[in-house]
């Protein structure tokens, strides 16, 4: 796997955890999405991900050969503006987003992504190389398991070691070692 593919794969794992954290905490209802597969891709960059909704949870995949129920395609700058609060309907009216399938389903997905507070600029800049990827973005900050699930120092150390092994860029230990 290429370094960027690895980075992107990890982003999907983190996004999946964050989305399901929202669902578990009852902040969003995804029953409308049940059984649906939604493709989401940026037209100007080789970035795509797939959201599989079933059993009251969401799986986020970096790739699939399966047919999707809804496809959302947009440019990276539109993606950023969308997550910064731009109205989906307005962007659709301006032909800045291409949706194949049910627009309401796409709207619900966008609402979910907004809730997660993705740092889209950093996500995109990792590919374009504008910013050194010293961390995986604000996405992880909001749902850091060490912050949300435990104050136990041992658990925090274990999580830190897990991060170092699985995802060195995200790890505080790595950052300290390289600063």
């Amino acid at each position, binding site marked *: *796997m290429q370094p960027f593919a*690895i980075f992107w*794969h990890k982003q999907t*794992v983190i996004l*999946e*955890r964050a989305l*399901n954290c929202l669902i*578990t905490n009852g902040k969003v209802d995804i029953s409308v999405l*049940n*059984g649906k*597969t939604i493709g989401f891709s940026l037209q100007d960059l080789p970035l795509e991900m797939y959201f*599989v909704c*079933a*059993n*009251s*949870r969401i*799986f986020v*995949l*970096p*790739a*699939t050969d*399966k047919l999707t129920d809804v496809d959302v395609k947009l440019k990276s700058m539109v993606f950023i503006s969308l997550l910064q609060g731009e109205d989906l309907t307005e962007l659709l009216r301006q032909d800045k987003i291409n949706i194949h399938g049910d627009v309401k389903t796409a709207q619900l997905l966008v609402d979910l992504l907004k809730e997660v507070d993705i740092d889209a600029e950093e996500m995109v800049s990792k590919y374009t190389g504008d910013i050194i990827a010293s961390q995986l973005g604000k996405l992880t900050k909001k749902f850091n*398991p060490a912050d949300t699930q435990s104050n136990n120092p041992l658990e925090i150390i*274990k999580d830190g*070691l*897990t991060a170092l*092994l*699985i995802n060195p860029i995200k790890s505080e230990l790595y950052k300290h070692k390289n600063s």
Partner: protein
Amino acid sequence: MENTTYFGFKQVATDDKQSLVRDVFNSVASKYDLMNDVLSFGAHRLWKRYTVASSNVKVGDKVLDIAGGTGDLAIEFRKKVGNNGQVILSDINATMLNEGRKNLTNKGIFGVEFVQLNAQHLPFNSNTFDCVSIAFGLRNVTDKNQALKEMYRILKSGGCLLILEFSTTDSALLKKLYDFYSFNIMPRLGGIIADDEASYQYLAESIRKHPNQETLKDMVLNADFDFCEYHNLSGGIVALHKGIKV
């Protein structure tokens, strides 16, 4: 040779593999955790934590851990599903299952059920579990395709299969180091610590005979899973495959 299969590098009669694997685990059961810690430098615990973190399991879910051995995954799943959920720790080997029971009791983990079973014939109704996991166990299963089909059958719609297993690294340098470690150091450590060099020779050989990432992904998809992706850990020495039944 239709009725043969691999036991490490050796070809053996298919019917014999199960008992040969049983002998290996009977022999290493009491030192299993210690050996895992020594041989992987503790990394196996991190791989397992990552597996549970990737599971999408939530409060109230039903989870089956196959080849669960000493219960590392079951302990973490138990914390996730809470009192309304259900975690079943299973293993084909009674000695390993007893080690798991002792381990959980010693750690004060209660509410986990124990079932001795063969992964090829799972004694559960269809569409029962939210998650099925198997960590470092699939390579010991004689008919992996049959086991994967069974795992698919007992999962609910929206259920998730997690396979944590040794795999293949892309890095030529890492592969050289890993091969040297596996075939020269691991069996010797097994001899010194667990007084069983042969079992750890089998471990190294069985890892090399296990399907690589892409092959295993195809096997999962062929077992009718709608989606399968994998994530390499530690440079591909280990891979986590995640199958989803929609």
